[in-house]
Structures are given as structure tokens and as C-alpha cells.
């Protein structure tokens, strides 16, 4: 590919800017690979399938998924003949038959069929990327190219890690009161929203309430590190881990929500994250992020800041711990949480003040109502 000019229409560029999409990651379907608006819009951390309407229909009729398939048409477009070739091979067809999560979570073992296809039909169809593997005999090393999603996560994490000098403070929180509150609210919330209230929800609410009193924590630094933006609203990012990668759906204007509203919002976002129905708009614009690995029993960890946030809260597991309580040894449910801050805008004192407030509100959650 000698042609290195990134061609993109003004509409595509405008949309990409708005969504924070890097155009070099997008496949353009226009003239000389020009990126059009719907190429960016369809870019949703999913591989965009570039396929002719007829081929699509045949694939659907035969219930095969064409993720990662590159066709013989212009710019890798999948054409009718490509699909017909795939479905005419029963082993290949079986492999490609749609089973969404199964496909995503288990790396495919190389098959005889693939090997055969590789040898005989070089020009036509080349399966590639995440799910599919190169044809190698089992037992030796396996090399896969990074998926789109992985590429993006990699880029983001690298950027964050290497541009922000961070420090982390770890605090311990006594979760007795919060757990009690949760128990009391479980039924009412279920009645009102049909959803199950989790501790994470309550932790998130505490964070949201506390954030507005600490403007440097709820802030964003621009790329050139010349301007801090203080937000007078909270868009809370919640890290959601899946097997193939990490997504951060954002609850917009969380500070204006009641607990019920928040519960509904976060449940909805999480569901759609897993079912891949998240809109690009819902993955950006956060002012603060929470990463919770508590359910996996982690004692403590530090997350990487989700740019352009100023900080990230890593929430670990609640563990029954022997502590000194009012001078006496007691077993209390203790949770460690760590605040990782961008030292360019947050100093230790600022972080500590926030955490102190946060801890206080979590240990005395009724203060949330004030």
C-alpha cells in the first residue's frame, strides 16, 4: 500500500472528532479508501462487516457469522461468491455458524478444514483477526493479531500510562453501615425498578456525591497539558470487563440522578455493553471512572487512569478483617479502595481530602441523604 494519505470526508472527520475515534483505525469504504460518515458511525469497537446486500442475505439465511472475514470484493468487501464458498464447505460452515458469545470467548482451535482452504483457495477468502486463527498444528505457539478492540485499549492505556505521572493512595473503608443500608434498600429498589441494588451502586453514589465537592478530582486535563476543565456535573464511567476486552460505559449526569435512576441506568448500560449494543456516545465523556474488581476477590489493585480524567478509583473486595474498633478487636467487613491520580493536576493532599470525604460518606451512608 503506497497510498498513505488518510482520506476522509468532512462529515466523517467531524463525527470522529466528536466520538474520539482515531481515523487511522477506521476502514473507509469510499473512493481510494476514503472514510465516510457511516464508516465512523459503524465503528463501534466491532469489526465492521463490509458486505454486499445479497451476500448478507445468504449469510443470514444460512445463519453464519462473518466476523473477521475479508472478502474478494473492493476493499475486502464480502461478495456473494465468497459466502457461497464458505457455506459449501460443511466444516467451515459449522465453525462459522453464529454463536455469539461462544465465538467471542473461546479462541478457535485451528481446523483441518481451514488448512485445506488455505491451500486451495488462496485468493478468495482469508479469515483473520480475533476469533479465527492461522492454521497451525495444535500444541505449538499460537500467534494472533490484535483485534480492533484490543488495539484501541492498548493505545489508550499506553497513552495514559506514559503521559500521566501518577501516584496512588490506598484507603480502607469499614463497609458495615453500607452493607446494612443495602440490605434495607434491596426490596424497595427492586419494587421500584425491578433491578437488584448492589454495593457497587451504593459505592458509585457515594463517589458521585463526594466528587462535586472536590473539583480537581472531577476534572479533565487537555492533551497538551495546558488546560484543566472543571466539570459541574458528573459523568461516571464504570469499567466493565469482558473476555475480549474492557469497555467503559458512562452514566451521564449521574449527579442529577436519584439512587433508583442510577440503578436503572447502570444496569441498562452494563447489559448493553455485554450485548454489544452500546452507542459510541455512551462510551465517552466521563469525568471520573470507577473500576471494581471486588467481585473477583482482589485485595487491592491500582487501575490506569481513563484519559482525560484526572483520577480513577479502584475498588477491591470486601473482606472480613480483624480490626481495632473503639479500642476493641472486632471482625468488620473492610474494603480497600485506591485512588490513582494524575500528579500533574492532583497533589497528595487533594487526593487525600477526597478520599477522606469518600470514606466518611461510605462509613456513614445516611449522610448521602443530606
Amino acid at each position, binding site marked *: 500500500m503506497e497510498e498513505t494519505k488518510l482520506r476522509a470526508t468532512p*462529515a466523517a472527520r467531524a463525527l470522529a472528532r466528536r466520538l474520539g475515534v482515531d481515523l487511522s483505525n477506521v476502514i473507509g469504504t469510499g473512493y481510494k479508501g476514503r472514510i*465516510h460518515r457511516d464508516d465512523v458511525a459503524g465503528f463501534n469497537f466491532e469489526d465492521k462487516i463490509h458486505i454486499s446486500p445479497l451476500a448478507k442475505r445468504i449469510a443470514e439465511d444460512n445463519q453464519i457469522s462473518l466476523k473477521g472475514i475479508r472478502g474478494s470484493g473492493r476493499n475486502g468487501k464480502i461478495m456473494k461468491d465468497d459466502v457461497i464458498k464458505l457455506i459449501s464447505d460443511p466444516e467451515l460452515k459449522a465453525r462459522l455458524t453464529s454463536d455469539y458469545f461462544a465465538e467471542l470467548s473461546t479462541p478457535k482451535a485451528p481446523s483441518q478444514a481451514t488448512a485445506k482452504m488455505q491451500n486451495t483457495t488462496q485468493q478468495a477468502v482469508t479469515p483473520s483477526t480475533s476469533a479465527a486463527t492461522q492454521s497451525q498444528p495444535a500444541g505449538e505457539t499460537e500467534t494472533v493479531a490484535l483485534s480492533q478492540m484490543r488495539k484501541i485499549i492498548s493505545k489508550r492505556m499506553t497513552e495514559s500510562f506514559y503521559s500521566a505521572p501518577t501516584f496512588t493512595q490506598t484507603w480502607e473503608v469499614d463497609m458495615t453501615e453500607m452493607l446494612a443500608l443495602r440490605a434495607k434498600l434491596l426490596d424497595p429498589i427492586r419494587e421500584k425498578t425491578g433491578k437488584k441494588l448492589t454495593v457497587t451502586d451504593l459505592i458509585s453514589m457515594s463517589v458521585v456525591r463526594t466528587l462535586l465537592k472536590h473539583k480537581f478530582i472531577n476534572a479533565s486535563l487537555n492533551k497538551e497539558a495546558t488546560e484543566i476543565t472543571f466539570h459541574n456535573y458528573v459523568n461516571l464511567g464504570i469499567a466493565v470487563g469482558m473476555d475480549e476486552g474492557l469497555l467503559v460505559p458512562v452514566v451521564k449526569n449521574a449527579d442529577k440522578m436519584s439512587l433508583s435512576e442510577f440503578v436503572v441506568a447502570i444496569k441498562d448500560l452494563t447489559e448493553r455493553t455485554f450485548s454489544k449494543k452500546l452507542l459510541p456516545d455512551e462510551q465517552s465523556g466521563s469525568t471520573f471512572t470507577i473500576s471494581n474488581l471486588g467481585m473477583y476477590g482482589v485485595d487491592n489493585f491500582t487501575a490506569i487512569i481513563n484519559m482525560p480524567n484526572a483520577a480513577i478509583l479502584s475498588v477491591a473486595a470486601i473482606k472480613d478483617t480483624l480490626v481495632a474498633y473503639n479500642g476493641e478487636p472486632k471482625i468488620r467487613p473492610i474494603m480497600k479502595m485506591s485512588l490513582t491520580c494524575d500528579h500533574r493536576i492532583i497533589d497528595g493532599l487533594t487526593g487525600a481530602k477526597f478520599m477522606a470525604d469518600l470514606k466518611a460518606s461510605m462509613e456513614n451512608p445516611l449522610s448521602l441523604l443530606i
Partner: protein
Amino acid sequence: MENETKLMSVRDAVIMAMSEEMRRDENVFLMGEDVGIFGGDFGTSVGMLEEFGKERVRDTPISENAISGCAIGAAMTGMRPIVDVTFMDFIVYMMDNIVNQAAKTRYMFGGKGQIPVVFRCAAGSGVGSAAQHSQSLEAWFTHIPGLKVVAPGTPADVKGLLKAAIRDNNPVIFLEYKAQYNMKGEVPLDPDFVLPLGKAEIKREGNDVTVVTYGRMLERVLKAADELAESDGVHVEVVDLRTLAPLDKETVLESVKKTGRVLLVNDAHKTGGFIGEVAAMIAESDAFDYLDSPILRLAADDIPTPYNHLLETAMVPSVERIKKYILKLVNKR
């Protein structure tokens, strides 16, 4: 009488517009070559000599300079003349009077005086009249501050806009397309049916592509749009400019922002044609960021109009070519 319409040709709409205005205002009169007993070179003043008499329907010698100068002098002193230029090509003989006198007089006089004159031109190719009798020269006049330029594409618009041009207190270049004098359409009979100058009209709504056009090509663009909706499910929004100067930028830009794709079509030559101005206007506006394709133009080839019918027809955008260009935009090619 209010909302009644009648199916009539462009030619009849012209006669109706002029006659109504002449009945309404005794200062309006018509002058030009063969407008009287002959009824106009294109039959656009048939019956008017009989109704209004030779004072107000004046035959002139073949003297474009004197005709235009006389019209302008009369307009300056209180009359409201309509000049029948006949073939638009002959307006070239009138250029000094139109460009150096009519367009600039009010300005040079610091706002004193007005020149309410309409120059009606039979423009465009399509009737085998060859190179010196087939031009559409509207682009030249849009370049002159002080002139208004109008190019309607349907009989109703012809009537409404010609009346508006006659009532306007400024010099107006009014294009009629000689190939369309017989084209029929519903025209309101209300003598007060007047359309505003300077306003474009969306003749067809759609979400996929915007096609901006005017005059003779409007008919073909609408046909192409209808056919594409049926065959390819492509929905074209057709913007009919109607007035070229002053240009209704908002309507054009709103449509471009809506669809993100625009094709400009007219029957004048491509190079230096008016649609180039519209394209540049779009590109430098804030609609630029909504463009999802390059701005395309489709116009007549840059050749003098050939005599041969096949060559003449091929020179000008056809319905097929319009469809092709629209699909180019839709298919990102």
C-alpha cells in the same frame, strides 16, 4: 378564483403574467422586436397588441443598444418597461446599458433614482438553433452587483416570478427556456399570485442526496429523482433555486446539512457557470463539515452548441446522466 389553477404552457403563463401586470399598472409596457402584431418571436405576447394598443406594446427596430437604453431611461423617469430580448444571445449587444448603466446608476447616484426594468430572455439550447442562438448567459449577470437574475423551471413559477420581477424596482434579467415554452403545468389564476424573488424552493424532499438546480434542468432532475426512488430506493431532495441573484443560501445549506451529499445541475456550460459559485459557497460555509462526499457539478459541455440534434442533445445533462451522478454520490464513487 383564489385557489383555482389551470393547466397551461410556459408561454401562456408569460402572456398571463405580463397582461395582468399591465392591467394593474398603466406604467408597465412591453417593448422589443416583433412583440406587436407578430406576437413575439416565441409567441409570448400573442393577443397583447390587441388588448393594450401600440403605445404599450411597442415594436422596435433591430437596435438592441437603443432598445435597452431607451428602456432604462424610461424606467428611470417613472415607467416600468419589459424588454423582450428574444434570443438571450442578443443580450450581448445590450451589455453596456445593462451592466454600466442600469446596474450601477442607483448606486453611483448615492441611492437616488430607481430602474424598474425587466429583460426577458429566451435562453438555452434544445431547438436546433445552433451556437449563436442557444446560450444561457445567466452567470455573467450574477457577477454584476445591482442586477437580479431569475430562472424559473415550471409554468407556475414563471408566472409568479415574472410578476414579481415586474413589480420589483430594480433591473431584473429573467430567463425563459426556449425549449420549454410548450411545457405545461398547473398555474394559479389569481392575479395576485406573486412569488418572492430571492427564495429557493424544495420541490421534492429526501434524505439521501441534495440536488440543486434551476430552469430547464429542474424537470429532468425531478424525473431522475422519481425514477431513483422507485428503482434504487434513493431519496433525492431537489432544491430549485428559482432566483440566482440574490441567492437563497439558507435553503441550499440546510438541505446540504441534512443529506451531506450534493449534486449541482444546470444547462449552461460548466466552466464559469453559476453552479460553480454555489459549490464554492457550500464549501466555505459551515455546511462543509456535514459533507460526506465531494461536491459534484453536472452541466453542459464547454462547447458552442452544435447544430446536429444528436450532438446538441448529448451536450446537455440527460435524465440518465443525472441519475448516474446521483448514484455516484450515494455509492461513494
